[in-house]
């Protein structure tokens, strides 16, 4: 606190005081479990604040596209067992999960698959350097940008006319499109944080074109830092996704207006609660307002920061998290339980109690 160590009770009192006086607090980061997210939502509602997640940019894009046109998502298990062609778009999916190919292409054969094609991986805009030996993989990579490669594949898939001087790239694109046309079940994997909405719409157009004659689906990579879990928690709590404000009579969602970075840069938010307490994930804290930092990682405190060391979800305590292989929420056991540090949920609940006591006094 103000760069000096203080007792937990004193830090909580100061945090309650700061938040009770704040005109428009924002709860950002939200790298926490479902319990921590629920406590943050409850406190944001009490204070008329905003909730946002560090990985909101990709989450908002994916949900916007899904709302606008719908989509046909497939689960990890279904792809692993039934897809014969998997197209990984861009570098981000493999950077986010280096074991992704091994998870989707297990060495042992799985359940019976439709069709008799050999399984094939197509890497669009990525190299195949780290692909396991048992996987038949083709890389379609060139100097062309990812939006251009997606557009070219989509045009070739529809057998439409397009002008491309690079004959080697054209041959690869045409071969990938031919493979997709004869697939029994093709799946496109992408990270919504890497590609923009028009590109996602073009991927969905490819799926719509393929499903006229065969089966096709998408796998949108889950947001890091339990982003999907926090988003689901927000949706079942208040009916709206993250980037929602509780300042008015009813909660209001706005992906542009309630972006943590924007709120802090424009000085519209006057207090920040930054939560960074999830095993294996961390996010850089934005600057711009007095901050209450709930962190499980070593953090540098600015002059007016209140830093509270908390337990790391899934490392120091059991945690309910969004698990991509299940496409749902599951419990993750703690590696080694540490009951010496409070959880995010416990800290936020205590701050809420202190605010209630102040208001009652």
């Amino acid at each position, binding site marked *: 606190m103000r760069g000096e160590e203080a007792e937990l009770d004193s830090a909580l009192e100061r945090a309650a005081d700061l938040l009770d006086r704040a005109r428009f607090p924002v709860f950002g980061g939200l790298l926490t479990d479902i319990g921590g997210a629920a406590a943050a939502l409850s406190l944001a509602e009490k204070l008329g604040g905003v909730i946002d997640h560090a990985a909101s940019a990709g989450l908002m894009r994916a949900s916007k596209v899904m709302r*606008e*046109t719908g989509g046909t998502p497939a689960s990890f298990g279904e792809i692993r067992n039934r897809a014969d062609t998997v197209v990984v778009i861009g570098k981000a999916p493999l950077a986010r999960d280096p074991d992704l190919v091994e998870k989707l292409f297990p060495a042992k054969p799985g359940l019976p698959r439709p069709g008799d094609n050999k399984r094939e991986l197509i890497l669009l805009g990525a190299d195949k350097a780290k692909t396991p030996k048992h996987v038949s993989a083709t890389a379609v990579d060139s100097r062309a940008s990812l939006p251009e490669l997606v557009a070219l594949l989509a045009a070739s898939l529809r057998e439409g006319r397009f002008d491309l001087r690079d004959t080697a790239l054209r041959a690869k694109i045409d071969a990938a499109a031919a493979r997709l046309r004869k697939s029994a079940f093709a799946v496109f994997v992408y990270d919504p944080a890497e590609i923009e909405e028009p590109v996602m719409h073009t991927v969905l157009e490819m799926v719509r074109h393929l499903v006229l004659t065969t089966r096709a689906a998408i796998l949108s990579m889950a947001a890091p830092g339990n982003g999907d879990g926090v988003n689901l928690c927000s949706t079942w709590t208040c009916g709206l996704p993250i980037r929602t404000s509780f300042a008015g009579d009813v909660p209001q969602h706005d992906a542009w207006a309630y972006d943590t970075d924007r709120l802090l840069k424009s000085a*519209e938010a006057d207090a920040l609660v930054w939560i960074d307490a999830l095993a294996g994930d961390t996010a850089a804290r934005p600057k711009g307002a007095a901050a209450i930092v709930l962190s499980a990682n070593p953090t540098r405190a600015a002059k007016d920061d209140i830093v509270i060391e908390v337990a790391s979800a899934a490392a120091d305590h059991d945690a309910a998290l969004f698990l991509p292989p299940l496409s749902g929420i599951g419990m993750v056991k703690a590696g080694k339980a540490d009951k010496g540090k409070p959880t995010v949920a416990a800290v936020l609940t205590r701050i809420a109690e202190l605010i209630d006591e102040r208001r009652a006094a």
Partner: protein
Amino acid sequence: MSALIFELKDTPGQRLDLSPLVPARLAGMSRKDIEAVSIGTTRETLTVGDAFKVKGKDAQNIHFVGTDERCDKIGAELEGGAIFVDGDAGASLGARMKSGKIGVTGSAGVLAAASMAGGEITIRRNVGAQACGVALGETMGMKGGFVTVGGDTGALLGERMRRGPRGRRRQGGRLCRRPHDCRHARAQRGAGRYAGYGNRRGSLIFMEKPKDILPTFSDCGVMEFDYLRLLEKWLRDQDIRIRLGDRARRLMGDMAVLGKGEMLILA
């Protein structure tokens, strides 16, 4: 009767939601009632009377004076009447409007004319990203009406737009537009990367060659288009003077999707 004038007193400490200040909702209200309308967006209560000096009476003719980029939702869901903004406008200017007129002397923020269905908006300077795009909670972009932008536009101009002409006089951002099913033409001077990405139908008319043309737009050569002359005349009738001529290089696309659209680059 004199116009109903809202003159901003000071730079607001929070974003203002000005969607209640439209003719249909203000008609018949006394000045005291208008001044009591809540326009705040934080837990700090803020009314019209706190933020604006209110003058005049005619609720069909509203003037905002001295507004800035924090004044959001001006003319949102407008269904008739006129709004004149002497200053800048914030996000969602004229979003979902059905009829009426809005004029802005300065710039407008993101989502201007989003999911607009009818009416007319003129913005003298720049607009932010996703102008004429998809309003919050909607699935489609601009469906009708007429928008003129005197300056630059941000990214994703006309995203998922279906209908309605739009004139723009300067530069556009990256992934410039993705009309879903528009049937009208629009004229623009230049564009950022990937103009027309995902264009299904409709015509994009460029006065200068866009920065990067996608390979999925097929070059059909230079042709004569009589409708350019008709469009030029129609734009002149709307007080927009752009010389289009009748010759243009035609590129069909986007072949990545339906491919029934075109990009015309004036010759």
